[in-house]
């Protein structure tokens, strides 16, 4: 099983996404997929390199500078180039983080009415927050301006929320405080979330964890080498999140 990290067209977080995917140890190989390079004039003839069961990782940051709304243009480009048909055909697994989540949402994969809108209260914010993951509370950074998750009525069948905002100091207006969605469609696992697990590989990455913790916990044999983000990613890649 290999992983492909999308790159190019203004995508930003491909490097840290790649490092995290390698660190997870879940993949045979982690490859970059430079979108402008494979995107020929004849869209139908694009040679997507995927094989059955591969993971495609959609990194965070911006794409195309997002002047038309976050993730909109990249979602359109992927759709027009037959990307989502490949996902169905080969049973590919997808992980979208932040902008990647916005791309997946814009593509309609989490339901036609599911959207990520501008934060309310508004504006781009970068901070570390507490989130409720399936088994415990974890701390991860968020950095987004359009993370207010909304949908009409109920989420489509098969789509579930797996991550919630649990920090009183951070609100972006998401319905039911949902920060991440997961969807099982045939053999494909499709996962999207606003926070950035890919830069929480070590507990020391957390601005509240520091050397004293390290030395003390090390002495007592309690130190966990693995950050909350890496643990979460591994769970997703191993499909233990459902």
């Amino acid at each position, binding site marked *: 099983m290999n992983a492909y990290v999308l*790159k190019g067209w203004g995508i930003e*977080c491909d490097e840290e996404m790649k*490092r995290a995917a390698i660190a997870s140890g879940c993949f045979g190989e982690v490859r970059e997929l430079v979108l*402008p390079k494979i995107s020929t004039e004849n869209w139908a003839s694009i040679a997507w390199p995927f094989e059955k069961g591969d993971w495609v990782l959609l990194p965070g940051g911006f794409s195309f500078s997002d002047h038309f709304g976050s993730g909109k243009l990249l979602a359109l480009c992927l759709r027009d180039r037959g990307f989502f048909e490949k996902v169905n055909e080969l049973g590919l697994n997808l992980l979208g983080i932040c902008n990647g989540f916005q791309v997946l949402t814009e593509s309609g994969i989490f339901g036609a009415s599911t959207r990520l809108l501008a934060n309310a209260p508004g504006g*781009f914010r970068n901070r570390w927050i507490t989130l409720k993951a399936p088994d415990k509370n974890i701390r991860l950074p968020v950095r987004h301006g359009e993370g207010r998750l909304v949908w009409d009525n109920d989420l489509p069948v098969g789509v579930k929320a797996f991550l919630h905002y649990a920090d009183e100091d951070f609100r972006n207006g998401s319905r039911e405080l949902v920060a991440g969605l997961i969807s099982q469609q045939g053999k494909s696992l499709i996962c999207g979330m606003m926070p*950035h697990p890919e830069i929480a590989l070590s507990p020391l990455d957390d601005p*509240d964890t520091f*050397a004293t913790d390290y030395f003390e916990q090390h002495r007592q044999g309690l130190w966990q080498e693995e950050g909350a983000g890496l643990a979460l990613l591994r769970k997703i890649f191993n499909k233990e999140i459902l």
Partner: protein
Amino acid sequence: PWAFCIKMETHNSPSAISPYGGASTGLVGVHRDILGTGIGAKPFASWDVLCFEDPDADMNRPRPTKALPADVIRKGVLRGIEDGGNQSGIPTVQGSVVFDASYAAKPLVFAGTLGVLGRQHVDKDARVGDTLFCVGGAVGPDGLRGAVMSSRDLRADDFSGSAVQVAQPFVQRCLTEFLIEARDRGLISTVTDNGAGGLASSIGEMAQSTQGAAIDLSHLRTKFEGLHGWERLLSESQERMSVGTRIPEAFKRLANEWGVEWDELGKLTSSKRFEVLLDGKNLISLSLEFLHDACPRMKLETSWTWKKEKALLASALAQNVPSAATAFKTFARLLASTHLSSREGVVRRFDHEVQGRTRKLPFGGRTEESPQDGSLLEITEDPTRETFVALGHGLAPWRKDIHDNVLHSLDESVRQAILGGLRMNEAGFLDNFSWPDPLPSKTRPQSERILWKLLRTCELLSSATRSWDVPFVSGKDSMKNNTEGFDILETLVVSVAASAESPLAVPHGFFTRPNDVVFYLPPLRASLRDSMLERVNATTFTSDRCLLLGENVTDLDADLDRLLFQMKQRYENVGEAVRRGLIRAAKDISEGGLLTAAFEMCLGRQVGLQLEFESCDVETFFSEGLTGFVLTCDVHRITELEKLLPDMKRLGVVMKPFVMRWGRDTEWDLEKLRQAYRHRSTQGFWS
């Protein structure tokens, strides 16, 4: 091995007439400086220093009639930095915002960037016959005469013209990724960014490497029909890099794969001339000697002296220092002022973690409310080795004595970077000047003094670099920061970067557990002179107005040498303590003095402080000086630290309740102070 490079740009005049465009092109423009270093470096961290007109300043005072309103400038600049940085995928890891009424004449926008490149990519390798390309955006009439406009007084027609461009970070992001791959494939022999002066400047500069260049602008991609030849040559349209290559076909192929547009311009020659063709005709043909060396060097003289300066500084009369009884109120007012209030509202708008390298964030603690000094960044290019870079910067333009101004700027940059793990013997400084016009003339008699200050600044920087054995590796100056006779404060920004210790040694910026003992290193030459207390109260509390002692310049310089030596010793000792991992939490004592530093360290985990003082003595707690720190130590190693820092004193003990307790009786509610400190951030001042 990896090398890193550092550059900071000023974009003051553009930001004065078009705040959003000026600030965003300033930041995106300095990224290109990094991209044009060696045969291409990758920008990986930015920092900004922004100086705005104080919105709390008297509304009825005279102000330049052509200047845009303060709010328009502030909001536009912040939005420009937000978009320029976030959409480029380059983290903004630190910064400063300074307010003063004088910045109505021009806002200051300093944008700095760090870049990383392999040792093998440091030297350019241009040869005669290399093919020249311009890659990235097309050329338009935007940005014409930008450099000219920045080098004189603002004129009414500047606002309607096209001197300021609007940045397209997306175009540059694609360009950057393509150029880094082209570099790694050996397709680039030389590269220079296109900024002020456009192709005339970039190719004109490249021509020096082989003693000649010939280009043809007939087929240049343009945004509009009918651009004149000189416009094509001089346009400062953004997102363009000039590249020399010996493998043009492979270079074009790779550019096409990335979807990056290019123009083949011509070749490097040895003709000793810079030749430009348009539609088969010679547009210009200039000898390189004339192009680069014909401009005569300016020789400036000033009649101003230290004696005159000293007399001017001493003229203010000192008022009584506020008493310890009113200290709580005084402190709350300080924290609520524009100068000292929390910068959270602005910092959170800038992505400071993209690329996943930031190992010391701008804020620390569970609440992420303690501002942390210095940045620590990881060079992630080499997965087999851990390499770190520390960054710090400083400025103190409000300090009226120029010696005070310069030494505080230098000191703050080093203080910060030491707390980011800086290794002094592997460091490099960067100086950025934004000065009012220093050319003395009949209409500008004050320029005599401004020029003297410029000269003195250069002499001080020179002394510091020799005394500390740290080189200045780059810099930039902007010398026309005045409008309609209004001058800005003489503003020097010093930045410093160096390879750094590992995150396990680097101190964080907040108190952690009850019972931790808190120490402080008293600042050298501490005084209330130009302190935050004086600024907020708009008065003087001390008759001591000069940092250095001496009636003449010889005495001053002797005193300076003594002081620089003392400072160096402090840096070495604190640096050694960091290296050995003795210091757990630390902040430097800067604006607001000892009390502010201690207060800010309480916020990260909302803990309190039992002080070993009976009351808040204003002189001790509000004075500002050089090389001061507040710190906590690994409990098992206090003796070791005391040996290393013998002048360290006990400040108090961390405790659980969120209060500051003086002796047994007086208790300060930190929640109240916290609200004063944060009210601008929570109430939309920065949005």
